C-alpha cells in the first residue's frame, strides 16, 4: 500500500510506501514518519537543495551533522545505491541513544534541486530482521514529477 504526500508550497511530492505521520513541514522541507511507534522507525525527509547538489554532497552534509549530534557515532558502510530511480548513496551507521545501541541506515538522492533522504533506525540487535524492511521501503519510495 502506498500513500501520496504533496507539500503545500514547494514542489515536493512523494509516493510513500506506507501510511505516514507528518512530523515537520517547513517552507522548503518536510519530514514524514512511516512508522512512528518507536522501533524501528522510518523517516522520509524531502528538502530543497542547490540545483547542482549531488547525493555524495548530501551524504557528506548529513553524516557530518549526525557526527556532531549523536553519541559514539560510527559510520559502518557507505556505498552507491539506487533510490527513486537514480543513483544515490546508502550509509549504515551506529550510535548510542539513552544508553542503547542504535543502528541507522539511510538512502539519499539529490536531483532537480531536491534532496530526498530515507532513514531507517532500529535498536541494534534488531537490525538483522529489519534490514530487509528498510531496503524494501527504499525500493518503493519515489518522488513524483512536479506539475
Amino acid at each position, binding site marked *: 500500500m502506498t500513500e501520496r504526500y504533496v507539500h503545500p508550497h514547494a514542489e515536493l511530492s512523494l509516493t510513500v510506501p506506507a501510511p505516514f505521520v507528518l512530523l515537520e513541514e517547513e517552507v522548503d522541507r518536510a519530514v514524514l514518519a512511516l512508522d512512528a511507534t518507536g522501533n524501528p522507525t522510518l523517516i522520509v525527509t524531502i528538502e530543497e537543495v542547490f540545483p547542482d547538489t549531488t547525493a555524495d554532497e548530501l551524504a557528506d552534509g548529513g553524516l557530518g551533522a549526525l557526527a556532531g549530534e549523536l553519541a559514539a557515532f560510527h*559510520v*559502518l*558502510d557507505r556505498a552507491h545505491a539506487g533510490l527513486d530511480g537514480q543513483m544515490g548513496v546508502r550509509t549504515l551507521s551506529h550510535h548510542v541513544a539513552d544508553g542503547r*545501541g542504535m543502528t541507522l541506515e539511510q538512502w539519499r538522492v539529490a536531483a532537480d534541486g531536491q534532496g530526498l533522504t530515507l532513514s531507517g533506525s532500529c535498536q*541494534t*540487535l534488531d*537490525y538483522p530482521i529489519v534490514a530487509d524492511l528498510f531496503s524494501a521501503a527504499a525500493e518503493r519510495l519515489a518522488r513524483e514529477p512536479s506539475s
Partner: protein
Amino acid sequence: MSLPLEVEVRRDGRRAAGRIEGGLGRLLVPRTVGLEEIAVAEDLLPDALARLVDLGPRLTSSAGPFRVPAEALGQALARGDHEPSSTLDRTEDTEAEPLRSVLLAGYAHWRVEVRAQAAAAAGASSVEILDTEACLWLVSSDPPEVELSPTTPAAVFGLLCGLVPGSRGV
C-alpha cells in the same frame, strides 16, 4: 537467563577474548602495551566488535562467489601471502587462482566466534572475513572447501549482530 558464552576475535595474528554473560560483554583486547578490558552491554557489542575488526566503508565488487580447498586458504593465511612472490603465486594449482587474485592486492583476515563455554568449536557461531582492497569476502566453511563470497559492511554488521544472544536473529 542465558548461559555464559565465550567470544573470541582474531585479526591478523592478534587475539581478543572474553565472555558474554548477564547481558554484558567483556573482552580483553591487546594494546601496544598490555591488555585493555572492554565491557559493554550486549546491544553495544556488535559495534564494539566492528571497531575491533576495523569494519567500515569498503568498495563493493560484482565478482561472484568461488570455492577453494580449505587447505589452500589455510596455508596462504598461515604464510601471510600478500605478495606476487608468495608460494601461492608460484603454485600451478589452478584451483587456487581466484584466491591468489584476491590476496595479491593485500588483505586483512579476521574471524569473530561466539560459543558456549566448554563446547569447543561444536555449535559455535562465527563470522570470518577477508578484508581486501577490492571488497570484503565472507568466508564460509563447507569441508573440504571454503566458499568466498563478496559482501558489504552492512551485511557483515548484520552477521555480527546475529552473534549476540539478545539479537532477534538473522
